[in-house]
């Protein structure tokens, strides 16, 4: 008797669990699909915020950046992706100061580890969520991050920084 009732209970339980599973899959069947149709939706495609596409130096409207050319990023980079070229300039007060000449970034050897961004004392760097980086020669992967004619922001740093 015990066996027989167990048989029937098992049968009912099994059938029920199968039906629950079928209900779950049917719900997914009618759910909106998550697939991105990439080349077609290029105009509207937005990457998520934390996506690290390429390193950029942040510049504000007056073409000021915040890089003091201290070289911490360069020292922290595990791959030698960054090269900071600086020169010594004498300011009005007669003090010698380092000034950024060129900030070179090799996208081809970047790990996207974000160590440069994290360790930058001036928060001068950031990542953009772009991803279409394919080029035909390696040379094109080497970017100059400081914009033409940009300079270090004067002491009270402007609040709003645009990329």
């Amino acid at each position, binding site marked *: 008797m015990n066996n027989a009732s167990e048989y029937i209970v098992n049968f009912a339980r099994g059938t029920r669990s199968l039906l629950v599973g*079928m209900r779950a*899959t049917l719900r997914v*069947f009618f759910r909106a699909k998550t697939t991105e149709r990439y080349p077609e939706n290029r105009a509207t495609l937005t990457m998520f915020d934390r996506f690290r596409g390429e390193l950029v130096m942040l510049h504000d409207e007056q073409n000021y950046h915040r890089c003091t050319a201290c070289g911490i990023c360069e020292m922290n980079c595990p791959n030698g992706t960054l090269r900071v070229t600086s020169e010594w300039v004498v300011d009005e007060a007669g003090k010698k100061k380092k000034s950024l000449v060129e900030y070179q970034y090799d996208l081809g050897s970047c790990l996207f580890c974000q160590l440069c961004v994290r360790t930058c004392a001036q928060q001068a760097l950031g990542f953009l969520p772009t991803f279409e980086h394919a080029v035909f020669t390696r040379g094109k992967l080497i970017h100059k991050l400081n914009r033409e004619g940009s300079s270090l922001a004067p002491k009270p740093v402007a609040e709003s920084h645009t990329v």
Partner: protein
Amino acid sequence: MFDFSVITRWVDQLLRGVMPDAAATVVECVIIGLCLLLGYSVIALALIYAERKVCAWFQCRLGPNRVGPLGLLQSVADMVKMLIKEIIEIRHVDRFLFGLAPYIVIVASVGAFACLPFARGLQVLDFNVGIFFLVAVSSIGVVGILLAGWASNNKYSLIGAMRSGAQMISYELSIGLSILTMVVLSGTLQITELVEGQADGWLLFKGHVPAAIAFVIYLVAGTAETNRGPFDLPEADSELTAGYHTEYSGMHFGFFYLAEYLNLFIVAGVATTLFLGGWMPLHVPGWEGFNEVMDYIPSIFWFFGKAGVMIFVIMWFKWTFPRLRIDQLLRLEWKYLLPVNLLNLLLMVIVVVYKLHF
């Protein structure tokens, strides 16, 4: 409702008018064979596309959408690829049986396909033991699968084929018994009569409880019979790479692939014929206007529509349930389906004898 036998009779008379009877018969046979094979491959292509789309939707994806509008030409492109692929000659196989196996599988499936009543007057094979013939001819396929596994000289293939044999022979019982249950209700083995008998109500509704049980059992056993998930352990790719067709390539593999999908259609078609009224339109007693509107829909659409619903349900099974182990598979058949089926047959006999059906 449009009767397709008008067309076939017209073709028949046309041919007999221009040539002797014997020659006309031969020509008709060739035409029918060509039509069957054409329908066979077109349905297989449509099913492959449908399977990929349905599978994708069940996994929250879009499925094929690059080749042609909505990816409609995807399976055509696949077919072209399959046709131009090399058939690789494998050493140490039993050449003759290795080559023969895919043809046995495809012949069995075309034979069963020819029995289906597609529309009023559109049926190739129809005689007094039609449904019995269908069951018999569709089981020849297992011989092809066993041969393929044996002739491949490969452990995986052999294990897959043996599993397939055990599975098909077990589930043949369930299929046979559930078909028998419905034959008891309708009182005929001839497929046209089976369909004609459902003009006043589909057998699923006429036979109420026992018919519904037989329907569920038929669906489960039919899924197992076509070697589809969750019963696809003969080709369980994680354990056996591809089971019995591991060593096949090119169009030989294509035949197994085609037959697999067509068997799905055949199972759905037989379910339609036996339980859902074949090509009969849906009639609700008392709703005259509704019934008349339903009559305007051509019978071929009724058949393919119902078969399509059944195919969707079987695909739904496949993409929901995990694969069974071989002992679970056999336990399901011998400990659950078979006893339920035998009791159900008894119940149906009681229902028919005491006229409890509608």
